[in-house]
């Protein structure tokens, strides 16, 4: 049995920045080129980006920092706290550079994008990929890998191969099956932990085996997405490029605390700040929310103390994006789940059931209430945009914020702010 599509083939490239956060840190710091470098997650928690040299030493992705401290010390590994202001700006530059090739791009994450290359001839396409790679490197200083194939799922596979390839570019068009035979099931895009467990239990441990299972089996044992993945491995497009920025369906803000937090007051401060940030985000997108979830938890790694984690979801009577209302509801939710005597490590909120502000249902009280609050919210956003985040806030958010993030190793560079521009000593 073989599967090939007869119609004119789509061609899609996945451009993925190599060790993106590390590459950003290297941009203005040649001292750390060719040396082991890792970037830690918020609050210096876990390893989230590694240079090739750090991978070779044996530092694993996602490992808590305290577990690799010994390796770091022995091998003189350069450590950085994450500096999202910098990574965000460099990411925007990479994506803008990509847009100089084609408007048909889907920004998939901070360091990955799909680009439609269906218009490029087969024999030209690898050179085209090389050109993309070279231009991004020259303009932004960020190395990338380019994987080109007939579907998004296959382009992910191709990108994986390109990463190990000298040129960093591959068009996966011939001998696809040979590559799929060596490709582990759990590395396939769209195959999560649960699904890969199911596949492995049924003897399907490579992309090749998944490609050749029967349609009925997939449809029976998995969901629509599972079936789509299988079709995509066969070269049949089922997942289209999402070129327009589709609006989010939920908005989540959470942080780990720099210092563990015990009191309800401090948690209230943190939850309030998260609410303000989230509300501002959805207002920017002209959205409102119908539901808010509040969650808190202690550290799962702390063996000396008891673990506690809880969350509560509250449906709102009227969809809103008003900071004050959201804070009020969130605090009442927090009080329901807060327990005295625990040392909390993380608190967060999720706004869900988001919808366009204009779609809101008719409400008798709404016109009067809304107008007033909208004016206030607009004034708040405007002032904060002009005078910096949290110029205007509400008192509940606290002023001292001792629970704020720990960022001991930050490079503190922001290429998009006059305050923190890179400095060159001459």
């Amino acid at each position, binding site marked *: 049995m073989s599967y090939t599509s007869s119609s004119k083939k789509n061609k899609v490239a996945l451009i993925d920045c190599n060790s993106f956060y590390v590459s950003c840190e290297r941009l*203005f710091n040649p*001292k750390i080129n060719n040396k082991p470098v890792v970037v830690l997650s918020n609050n210096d928690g876990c390893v989230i980006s590694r240079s090739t040299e750090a991978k070779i030493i044996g530092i694993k992705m996602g490992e808590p920092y305290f577990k690799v401290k010994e390796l770091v010390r022995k091998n003189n590994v350069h450590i950085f706290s994450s500096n999202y202001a910098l990574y965000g700006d460099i990411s925007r530059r990479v994506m*803008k550079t990509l847009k100089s090739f084609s408007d048909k791009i889907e920004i998939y994450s901070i360091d990955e994008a799909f680009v439609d290359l269906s218009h490029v001839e087969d024999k030209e396409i690898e050179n085209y990929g090389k050109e993309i790679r070279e231009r991004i490197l*020259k303009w932004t200083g960020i190395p990338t890998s380019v994987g080109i194939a007939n579907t998004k799922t296959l382009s992910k596979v191709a990108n994986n191969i390109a990463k190990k390839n000298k040129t960093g570019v591959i068009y996966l068009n011939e001998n696809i099956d040979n590559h799929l035979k060596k490709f582990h099931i759990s590395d396939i895009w769209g195959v999560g932990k649960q699904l890969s467990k199911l596949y492995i239990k049924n003897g399907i441990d490579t992309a090749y085996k998944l490609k050749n299972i029967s349609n009925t089996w997939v449809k029976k044992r998995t969901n629509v997405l599972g079936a789509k993945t299988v079709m995509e491995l066969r070269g049949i497009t089922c997942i289209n490029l999402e070129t327009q920025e589709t609006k989010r369906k939920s908005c989540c803000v959470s942080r780990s605390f720099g210092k563990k937090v015990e009191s309800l007051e401090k948690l209230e401060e943190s939850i309030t700040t998260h609410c303000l940030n989230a509300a501002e985000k959805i207002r920017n997108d002209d959205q409102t929310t119908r539901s808010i979830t509040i969650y808190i938890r202690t550290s799962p790694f702390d063996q000396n103390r008891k673990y506690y984690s809880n969350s509560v979801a509250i449906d709102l009577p009227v969809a809103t994006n008003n900071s004050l209302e959201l804070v009020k509801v969130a605090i009442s939710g927090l009080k329901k789940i807060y327990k005295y005597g625990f040392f909390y490590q993380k608190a967060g909120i999720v706004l869900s059931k988001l919808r366009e502000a204009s779609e809101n249902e008719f409400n008798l009280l709404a016109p009067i209430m809304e107008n007033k609050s909208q004016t206030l919210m607009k004034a708040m956003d405007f002032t904060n945009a002009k005078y910096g985040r949290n110029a205007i806030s509400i008192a509940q958010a606290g002023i001292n914020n001792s629970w704020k993030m720990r960022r001991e190793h930050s490079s503190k560079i922001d*290429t*998009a702010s006059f305050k923190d521009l890179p400095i*060159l000593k*001459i």
Partner: protein
Amino acid sequence: MKLTIPFYLHKVGAGFPSPATDYIEDDVDLNSHLITNAPATFIIRVQGKSMVNVGIYDGDLLIVDKSIEPRNFSTVITNINEELVVKTLIKEKGVSYLTSGSKNILDKINLAENPEIIVWGVVTYVIHKQQ
């Protein structure tokens, strides 16, 4: 980073204000003047006095374009001994050298003989505060 300055079409004069005062034609957009290729352009602050002879002073802001090729006598950012530094690039008989802008022949670095040195970007403008 956005900085615009309103651009007035009438001259400044003493006496009765022009009725056209309300009429602002357009904004002078320094971004579009100083930056031709935004994703490739970085602003870098300098500290130090070693490049005074090429017109770069302590605290100046450099507009650096990574996408363009340096010409003869371009001011460039380059990596030497694991540091980013400002140099002048000169071309003699098809060979590119980096200098500190001084006449001292000894500090000429031949780019072809030092493949590890790359031109990081080309300085297109220097923003210097006069007062």
